[in-house]
Structure formats: structure tokens, C-alpha cells
């Protein structure tokens, strides 16, 4: 791979966060490289939001070395800020504004940070169309539905054409249609705008669809790091084979599904119908990992799938 692909946008080393006497993050390590979509998964209270807020520069970590776009977020100045985008959950702010006015206003802040390679801000009409708010562009924000409001949040997050975008549970409360459109938007941002994206979600299906890489945060550590396929292979080498023979359905778990299917055909030939071979889904993987953590085997899980030994490196350069 060309070296530019490897440029690290986020580097987190030994990040700790303590609230009172409670350690929420206990030595988190990970790297995000340019153009990646990285999804942070984890049970409630695992520290996903805390992690994102530390990276955004909105929260001070207790300890650790962090570089976001080459800068420690605790010391990130406004010029650094201009290169990042944050999608916030709106509530009742700017109720009297219209999406068009608000995006124009917030976009203007980015004008002095425009460069020939990255013109800032986005053209507002284009942005509004991109998030599907053209019909509501001149309505008051308070009249927008929940889903429309979230799309406005996304538009605000990207109005400055960020190099790095943070999203904390962006699709909570989306209907399936809005969710699909949001996914297309994310693909568009990474493909056309060379935006690196870090997001949290509870939706495993979404994680599978969007992520180049998934990080699972449990027990204050990253217990898994890889794409959905790789994670599934880590947690379970077994595949599941389902087939139908003579009107009867069968299910068999096997460590070698290919061999098993070959033997199945060798034995029954064309009589086999409805054949399905599946690996453990991301959901299975995730639940297994979180369960391992919650049953007090967090350390074991962390060692088995930890970011140091078992780390799957997509670039293969480390």
C-alpha cells in the first residue's frame, strides 16, 4: 500500500479515565489511519462516549498519550478544531433558526480555514440536498421530526468539510429508510471527501455495513480490533452449515465447513437443497466477547483478542 494510506489520524496509547475511584478506561490503545471508518462498539457504560469526547477535545483524560491529526486534543487550538467535525445530538437548540440559516451561519466560521485542496465550508444548498432536507430547508428547526433533526446534526458536523468526523450514536431513532440514506452519506464522505470517520453505535448490523474496522470496548479496554469477518474468526473458528434433505432440515456446526459441505455433496449429491453456510455473525461475536467480559473473564478476553498480539492490521505494515 502507498504510504499515504497509512498516515495515522488518531493514535491512542494507554488511555486512562477515572471518575472518582472508578476507572472507566484502563489503558485503551488503538490507531485510526486516513480514510478509515472505525466503529466503536461496547455495552452501555463501557466508556464509548468518554473515549469519543476525549478525542474531540471536550474532556480531559486522566492519563495517556493521544494524537488526533497529530495534535494532543487537550492542547488542540481553534485551527485544529477547524479540521475536525463533531456530530452532536441536538435537542432544542436553535429552535427559531431554519436549517439553511443555521448551516450558513455555522459554515461561515470555517471560511478562513479554506485551502485549495479542501474548500471550506460546504455549499449549503448542496449539503442540504445531500442529507435530504431540501424540503425542510426553510422550516423552523423546532418543526423538524426527530430523524430530520439528526440529519441536520450530521450536516452541521460536516459543514466545515472535516478531515476527521466524530459521530456518537448518529442513527439512534432513525427509521430504516433514514438509516439507509445515512449509510450512503457516510460512504460518500469517505469515498469522495477522504474523510476519516470514527463513530459509536449500538446497531451491529450498521457496524457490519459501515465499518472498515470495529473496535470493541469492554471492561475499560479494547478487547477486539478488526473487521467483522476477522472478529468472527477470532471468536469462533466454527462455521454453521444448514441444509435440507428429503424434506428435513439439518444444522451442523463444524470447524471445517468447506470440507463438511464437500463430503455432504459427495454423499447425497443433488438431493441437498437450501444449503447455507455461515460464519458467526458480528452479533454472535460481539455477544460472546461482552459475555466473556461480564462473566469476569475480561482479562482473558483482552489477551485473546487484544490489540497487541492478536491485532489484525489491515495495512499489514506495523
Amino acid at each position, binding site marked *: 500500500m502507498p504510504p499515504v494510506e497509512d498516515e495515522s489520524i488518531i493514535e491512542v496509547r494507554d488511555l486512562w479515565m477515572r471518575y472518582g475511584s472508578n476507572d472507566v478506561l484502563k489503558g485503551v490503545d488503538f490507531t485510526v489511519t486516513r480514510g478509515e471508518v472505525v466503529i466503536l462498539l461496547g455495552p452501555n457504560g463501557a466508556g464509548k462516549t*468518554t473515549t469519543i469526547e476525549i478525542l474531540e477535545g471536550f474532556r480531559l483524560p486522566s492519563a495517556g498519550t493521544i494524537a488526533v491529526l497529530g495534535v494532543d486534543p487537550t492542547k488542540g487550538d481553534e485551527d485544529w478544531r477547524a479540521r475536525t467535525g463533531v456530530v*452532536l*445530538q441536538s435537542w432544542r437548540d436553535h429552535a427559531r433558526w431554519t436549517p439553511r440559516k443555521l448551516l450558513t451561519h455555522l459554515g461561515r*466560521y470555517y471560511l*478562513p480555514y479554506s485551502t485549495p485542496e479542501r474548500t471550506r465550508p460546504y455549499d449549503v444548498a448542496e449539503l442540504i440536498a445531500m442529507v435530504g432536507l431540501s424540503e425542510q430547508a426553510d422550516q423552523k428547526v423546532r418543526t423538524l421530526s426527530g430523524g430530520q433533526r439528526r440529519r441536520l446534526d450530521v450536516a452541521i458536523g460536516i459543514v466545515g468539510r472535516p478531515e476527521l468526523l466524530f459521530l*456518537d450514536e448518529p442513527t439512534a431513532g432513525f427509521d430504516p429508510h433514514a438509516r439507509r440514506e445515512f449509510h450512503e452519506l457516510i460512504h460518500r464522505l469517505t469515498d469522495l471527501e477522504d474523510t476519516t470517520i470514527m463513530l459509536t453505535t449500538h446497531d451491529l448490523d450498521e457496524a457490519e455495513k459501515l465499518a472498515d474496522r470495529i473496535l470493541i470496548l469492554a471492561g475499560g479496554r479494547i478487547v477486539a480490533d478488526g473487521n467483522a469477518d476477522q472478529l468472527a474468526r477470532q471468536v469462533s473458528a466454527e462455521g454453521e452449515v444448514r441444509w435440507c434433505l428429503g424434506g428435513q432440515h439439518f444444522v451442523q456446526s463444524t470447524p471445517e465447513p468447506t470440507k463438511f459441505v464437500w463430503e455432504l455433496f459427495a454423499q447425497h449429491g443433488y438431493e441437498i437443497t437450501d444449503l447455507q453456510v455461515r460464519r458467526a455473525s458480528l452479533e454472535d461475536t460481539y455477544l460472546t466477547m461482552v459475555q466473556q467480559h461480564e462473566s469476569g473473564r475480561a482479562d482473558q478476553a483482552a489477551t485473546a483478542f487484544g490489540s497487541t498480539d492478536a491485532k489484525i492490521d489491515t495495512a499489514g505494515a506495523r
Partner: protein
Amino acid sequence: MNRTGHRTLHAVRVGLARGWTEFTQSIRSPQDQGFYLFMAFAVVGYLFLRRNSEVEGTSLLVPSVSMPSILGGLVAFGVIIGPAYALAMEREDGTLLRAKAVPRGIVGYVTGQVLFHSLGLFPSLVTILIPSFLLFDNLVHRGLAGWLTVAWVLALGLLATMPIGIVIGSLVPNVQKVGTWGMLPVLVLTGISGIFYPIQSLWTWVQVVAQLFPIYWLGLGMRSAFLPESAAALEIGDSWRTLATIGVLTAWAIAGLLVTPVVLRRMARRQSGSHVEAARQEAVQWVR
């Protein structure tokens, strides 16, 4: 100017546009129009009921003396309570966090607030002054010089009092507490600052306390702008004490300019998504 200076200046300009937009949205909103009309109705109504009473020891009628005092009081009240509520509210609802997420957005936000609340005085002044001029005689005794005095007292009064509102709004733990830490002290202070009755009718130590704060001086400055020279006899020391007015208001303005940025930086630093989320959860419980 260096690059940082240019970028900050740009944010100030964006903030001015923001303040103007907020102001135009406010005067078009039935809710805010209702507020302005209610205030005007209350003030003019009070003056109207007392239109025939004479101020003791003079030939002046109550509206002549009270109208400028009340205007002074309203200015102070408006620019303290207005920003205090706005900031406390917008810290909770995420407006401020949005400002923090854009480059130099807090600079723009604060600029917008200052302009918005300054402009917000004009609907109050207009809705009170116009009916007052129609209903009462002998309100203005100073002509052009008087209006110039109104202008500088207003400007200096704004600088002296608005930082107080911004500081209260930045420090209160939540919107509900603006009543305790903002509304209540300001009302008490207004009560002892010679707005509704002469300050000399209070104990000496209360007079001293009142004169430490800007509200009294705003009222005094406004009276000096509207009333005839002879009315100075009603004041402490039989004088308008113009130099003292300038001195006290300027001192507050300077203190405000020094303290406010520090407080604002501290407040901005503490803004985060979870903070807003916590406030949202709290608010949901209030509704239930």
C-alpha cells in the same frame, strides 16, 4: 494583523451577524413581542395611575421623575437577567456546545449574545417612550444634550451590567437557579437603588450598598438626562454627580472586561455532549 488576529476578527463578524439574526427572529416571535408589550403596559400603566401626583418638595409630576429611573432600572435588569437566562439555557440545550465545535465559535457566540441583548433594549425603550410621550407632559427638559446623555449612560450602563449577567449565566448550575442567583439579587438591588422611590428614604448603610452597584447610577444618569437642572436637589448631595456616575460605571465595565473572559473560558471548557445529555435527562424528569 497576524493570522490568528484575522481569524478571531472573522469570528467576531460572524458573531455580529448571529446577534442580528437572533434579534430579528426575536422581534418577529409572538412570544417576545408579548413580553415587550407586557413590560411596556406595566410601566406605562404604573406611570399613568400616578400621572397627577407631585413629587414631594417639587412641582414635578411622578411620571417625569419615575420614567427615567425605571428606564435605567429596566436596562440593568434586561442586560443582566437576559444573558443570564440565555447562557444558562444554552449551556443546557447544546447551543454552546455547537459553538465550541466550530473554530472560534465561542468568540462568535459571545459576540452574538452581546449584540443581541444590547439590541433587545430598543424594543423596550421604544414601547415605553412612545406611549409615555403621548400620555405625559414635561418628560424631556434637556433637548439634544439630554439625548446625548441618554446615549452615553446607556452605552456605559450596558458595559457595566452585561458582564454581570454573563458571569451569572456561566456560573449557575442550571436554569432553575437563575432565579435564586440572578433574579432575586437583581430585584432586591433594584428595590434599594432609588428606582421606584428616593434612595434617601432608606437607612444610610443600605444607601451605601446600593451605591456600590451600577443600577443606582444608571437610574441617576437617566434622570440627569431627562429632568431639569433644579431637580438635582432631589439627589444625594444635591447634584447629578456626573463624574461619580462615569467613575462607578467605568469601574464595573473594566472589572467585567477582566473577569468575563476568564469565567467564559472556564465554562466553555466544561461543555461536553454528556453534560448536555445529563441536562436533557434532568429536563425530561421535570416534564414528567
